[in-house]
């Protein structure tokens, strides 16, 4: 790969990580509209349904399921990793529910957001990330991630003022457990992308793992099939908001996949962890959180935000040089030899080219059926939706939506021009 192409891909990966942060943060907004009284596992379960609908309909629209079949034929073993990643996500997401219950969001969020730091460790240990990068880039990535983490701690402590809760040890364990699971989930991400799998194909099987695990957890905690059904019926008025939250989350996660592909998990995941900053913007400006906050709290919010932005900037500037990228290619070739993959195909995919692009232009009846089904589900849920119980500022919501949409358009155009979404 030449230096110019590498620079373009690195910039693309950084932009994808930042865009992921915006949309993953925005995904919190619809779930805030859900009234109390619904079991947390049920909230997570309906959101995962929205995620599932989006993860199959978006690839069908963008690339066609023929592309997924083509990937499956070349790299069938990666389905195992995709399913594992989905299972890790579902268990981690459920752990966060317990963490919030036992220690509150202020403590829990930064603890599980340490998953970005674990991503750096796995990336360096297992996939050659940061090897040959030079001391300055090590400082930029590791230092930037630590500064980002410090900013997250300051933001979280300023965001929520809560009384000490019982079972702190249990809550901290659950939060750290979520961080461990999410941080380890990035191993399958990186494995898939250095092996040549297309992000849209990976997500198609990832979501099967998500749904299967989440369904099992819901079945176990809500009292079997009858319990799950009665909970869903009781929640029909808010299902649309949760499905919407899941859909928005998928858009953010898709950009996170591209970030993991083009800048690695050591850089891509900390960048997308700026979702906390965006979540704060939605909370403060749309939902009026901190409206009566003291000056000291607001100062901590500003300081935490600046720290997070500084950490993200340090990581963004510490792009991988050619020497490091050669280690990425070496890791990719190891996977190709281990699993009998076409080495030229693997390296082409790592460079953002799609040798199987001809498959991607065909749309089948199945593709349109998937899009139609997802659309019908959203329309049906919208017809049953109740008006949100929370007041929110529509002007601020519109401004944040436009900002997120602008990032999406910019990143999507860049992805198309540089890689044809490869």
């Amino acid at each position, binding site marked *: 790969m030449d230096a110019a192409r590498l620079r373009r891909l690195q910039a693309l990966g950084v932009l994808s990580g930042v865009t992921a942060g915006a949309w993953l943060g925005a995904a919190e907004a619809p779930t805030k509209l859900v009234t109390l009284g619904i079991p947390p596992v049920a909230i997570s379960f309906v959101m995962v349904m929205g995620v599932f609908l989006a993860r199959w309909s978006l690839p069908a629209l963008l690339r066609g399921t023929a592309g997924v079949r083509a990937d499956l034929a070349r790299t069938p*073993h990666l389905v195992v990793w995709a399913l594992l990643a989905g299972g890790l996500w579902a268990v981690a997401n459920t*752990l966060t529910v317990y963490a919030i219950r036992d220690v509150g969001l202020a403590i829990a969020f930064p603890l599980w957001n340490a998953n970005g730091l674990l991503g750096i460790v796995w990336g360096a240990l297992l996939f050659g990330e940061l090897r040959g990068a030079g001391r300055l880039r090590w400082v930029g990535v590791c230092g930037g991630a630590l500064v980002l983490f410090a900013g997250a701690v300051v933001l979280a402590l300023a965001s929520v003022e809560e009384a000490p809760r019982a079972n702190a040890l249990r809550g901290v364990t659950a939060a750290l457990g979520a961080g461990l699971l999410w941080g380890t989930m990035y191993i*399958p991400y990186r494995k898939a992308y250095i092996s040549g799998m297309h992000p849209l194909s990976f997500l198609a099987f990832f979501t099967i793992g998500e749904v299967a695990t989440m369904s099992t957890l819901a079945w176990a905690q809500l009292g079997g099939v009858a319990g799950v059904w009665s909970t869903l019926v009781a929640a029909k008025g808010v299902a649309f908001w949760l499905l919407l939250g899941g859909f928005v989350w998928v858009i953010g996660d898709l950009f996170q996949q591209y970030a993991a592909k083009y800048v690695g998990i050591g850089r891509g995941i900390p960048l997308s962890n700026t979702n906390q900053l965006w979540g704060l913007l939605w909370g403060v400006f749309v939902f009026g959180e901190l409206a009566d906050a003291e000056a000291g709290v607001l100062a901590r919010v500003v300081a935490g935000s600046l720290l997070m932005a500084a950490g993200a900037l340090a990581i963004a500037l510490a792009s991988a040089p050619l020497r490091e990228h050669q280690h990425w290619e070496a890791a990719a070739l190891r996977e190709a030899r281990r699993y009998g993959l076409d080495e030229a195909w693997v390296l082409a995919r790592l460079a953002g080219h799609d040798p199987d692009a001809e498959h991607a232009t065909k749309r089948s009846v199945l593709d349109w059926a998937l899009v139609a089904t997802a659309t019908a589900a959203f329309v049906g849920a919208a017809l049953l939706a109740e008006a949100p119980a929370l007041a929110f500022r529509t002007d601020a919501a519109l401004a944040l939506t436009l900002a997120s949409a602008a990032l999406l358009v910019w990143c999507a155009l860049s992805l198309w021009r540089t890689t044809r979404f490869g």
Partner: protein
Amino acid sequence: MSSPRSRWVALLGDLHFWIPLGVFVAGVALLAWLP
């Protein structure tokens, strides 16, 4: 391309498989421990 059997044998010897699987099992055990 390698045979399907050799591919799955390679998977069973792959640390990239056992680490996430081990963490997943630990996560499920943690969920079972949390009342």
